């Protein structure tokens, strides 16, 4: 495999990883605050849909290069609104969090397609839009392999990588991060210290909607160009896996997301090798999922979820 192919492989890996990075970062905010978020899939769907529609109308209005960013903004807004359904049920009404997360998935699948058909005269798909184009960073993009791989990517990919570091910093180095984690680990102790548990949890869930929304948007704005019923197809669940795999840590989740992105990208490249012709394609498709289980079994061991994850906070139960 020569350097050019290696660079392309790295590039494709990052493209596939970007959406997963955003969504798993979102999941971290929610779950670190103690609210299970099985609804990432639905939130991504909301985001992908909003980006496709918002991007389409912005493009129509002649916004040109800025149109995809309008799409991202719409995705953020719709993601937050969607996550509020989960927040109200799980935090205010103390519903089972797994259940209210599942509700998001249902509502998202139903309402996005319903609206697509409403907006675009019964079509099951939004019109194709241009989306983002790759931006080469001057100088750095000339480095062999890494230049082609990393520094010649979509703006959303750069944004994702920067956010990993920013969110790591927020979570572990700021008072806000400390409070958020405290609420997820030991809500009654945090409450005693004057932290508003429910408010922190609302913020956590809304940030998860915001980020998962961007995650969904990157799929329509970089890979597919449209939104249809199969645009997300399980990416949200893989983002959940990446979050758990990465032990609820932004850096870990980033690593896991890149791992999943890599194993999806490698499918496109493995066929370049002569020996791969003898392997049934199904087994090549299986690689990411089998690898995940093997890695989990051999390396990661017991997962370390936030202690109060999944428990509604009830101040009277101290």
């Amino acid at each position, binding site marked *: 495999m020569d350097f050019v192919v290696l660079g392309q492989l790295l590039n494709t890996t990052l493209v596939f990883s970007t959406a997963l990075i955003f969504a798993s970062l979102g999941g971290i905010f929610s779950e670190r605050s103690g609210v299970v978020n*099985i609804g990432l899939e639905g939130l991504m769907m909301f985001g992908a849909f909003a980006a496709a529609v918002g991007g389409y109308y912005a493009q129509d209005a002649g916004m040109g290069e800025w149109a995809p960013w309008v799409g991202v903004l719409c995705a953020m807004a719709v993601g937050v609104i969607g996550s509020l*359904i989960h927040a*109200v*049920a799980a935090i*205010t*009404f*103390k*519903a*089972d969090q*797994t*259940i*209210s997360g*599942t*509700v*998001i*998935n*249902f*509502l998202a*699948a*139903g*309402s996005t*397609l*319903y609206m697509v*058909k*409403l907006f675009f005269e*019964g079509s099951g798909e939004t019109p194709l839009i241009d989306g983002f184009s790759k931006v080469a960073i001057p100088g750095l993009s000339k480095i062999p392999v890494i230049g082609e791989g990393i520094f010649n990517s979509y703006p959303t990919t750069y944004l994702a990588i920067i956010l990993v570091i920013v969110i790591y910093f927020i979570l572990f180095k700021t008072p806000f991060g400390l409070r958020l984690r405290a609420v997820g680990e030991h809500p009654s102790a945090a409450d005693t210290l004057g932290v508003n548990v429910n408010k922190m949890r609302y913020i956590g869930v809304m940030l998860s909607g915001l980020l998962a929304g961007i995650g969904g948007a990157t799929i329509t704005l970089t890979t597919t160009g449209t939104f249809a019923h*199969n645009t997300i*197809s*399980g990416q949200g*669940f*893989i983002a*959940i*896996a990446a979050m*758990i*795999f990465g032990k609820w840590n932004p850096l870990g989740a980033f690593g896991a997301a890149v791992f999943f992105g890599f194993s999806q990208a490698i499918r496109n490249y493995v066929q370049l090798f002569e020996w791969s012709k003898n392997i*049934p394609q*199904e*087994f090549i*498709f*299986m690689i*990411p*999922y*089998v690898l*995940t*289980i093997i890695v*989990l*079994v051999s390396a*990661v*061991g*017991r*997962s370390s*979820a936030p202690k109060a994850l999944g428990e509604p906070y009830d101040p009277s139960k101290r």
Partner: protein
Amino acid sequence: MSRLRKIFATDSYIVPLVAILMGFLVGAIVMLFGGYDPIAAYSALFKRVFGSPYDFGEAIREMTPLMLTGLAVAFAFRSGMFNIGADGQVMIGMTAASVVGIKLGGVLPGFLLVPLAVIAAAVCGGLWAGIAGYLKAKRGINEVITTIMLNWIALFLSNYIVRTFLLLQGQNRSEDNPASLSMTFLFSTFDNARLHWGTVIALAAATFFYVYLWKTKQGYEMRAVGLNPHAAEYAGMNVGRNVVKAMFISGVFAGLAGAGEVLGVFHYQSVFAASPGYGFDGIAVALLGLTHPLGVILAAILYGTLTYGSAGMSFGADVPPELIRIVIGSIIFFIAAQGIVRWVLKPFYFKRKKEKVL
């Protein structure tokens, strides 16, 4: 009789019932916003399901796998686990039933072949789920991840097996399966709707679910582990073994759903283009049914009616059938967040009490 009365005690049915009504209401509001006529749409929905014997039979067919996957998810839930993998377990069940039915079709007589294919589907589905249970029990690996991964692996493994060993010449599906669960004697009554014994199996599975979990010592242990694994361990129960067993039984239900679809409905197995989604419907049904076997049956009836009828809704009133997912999602939302329903009901309760005082 008293038990029956307890199940239908005021609160336990009023809240879900009101939740269902509120779900329909949300659906109606969404339709009004889209410029549709909700009354025409809902009546088209029910007309589609109850309008002809054929459609009624087909609706029952639609409910059958929902019951079983609903039971699968509910059983795991009761034992403290979230089985997102019913989808994969259904596919493995289908594949096992196909392999046994087609490969042993000429060898075994029908009365042996059919039960064997069904048992193979159940056992393979159970073992597939058991992998996730084993990994959780032995290595503490979150079953949510493993069942998601196993769904994808099941998809590709099933496709590989069908493509390599069972393919009908030049087509993307297996040979016809000689084993059949069809209830042929009912065909004329229901205008050739594809009714099959899987429905009876599903009802039996629900009975087993109830008896096992609430009437046996093993079931008691399983529920204890589900409620509080630490307390159960302290009380001397083997948590790991219960986890594996619970996932196995959960997978058996899902595997049976697969057997019903392959042996009762399609009579062959296609190469899947994507995951068929039975497992995700099962999650909804389990939640709608409050993870109780009787509730799951009722929920499957509701869910099956709505999804089967949604096609009629789109023909009859031009409403996109996806709307029904909004209705179902809202119903689950209101059932989960019962606080909202109680809040809505509060004035009524208050009035009633007042009347009593007077």
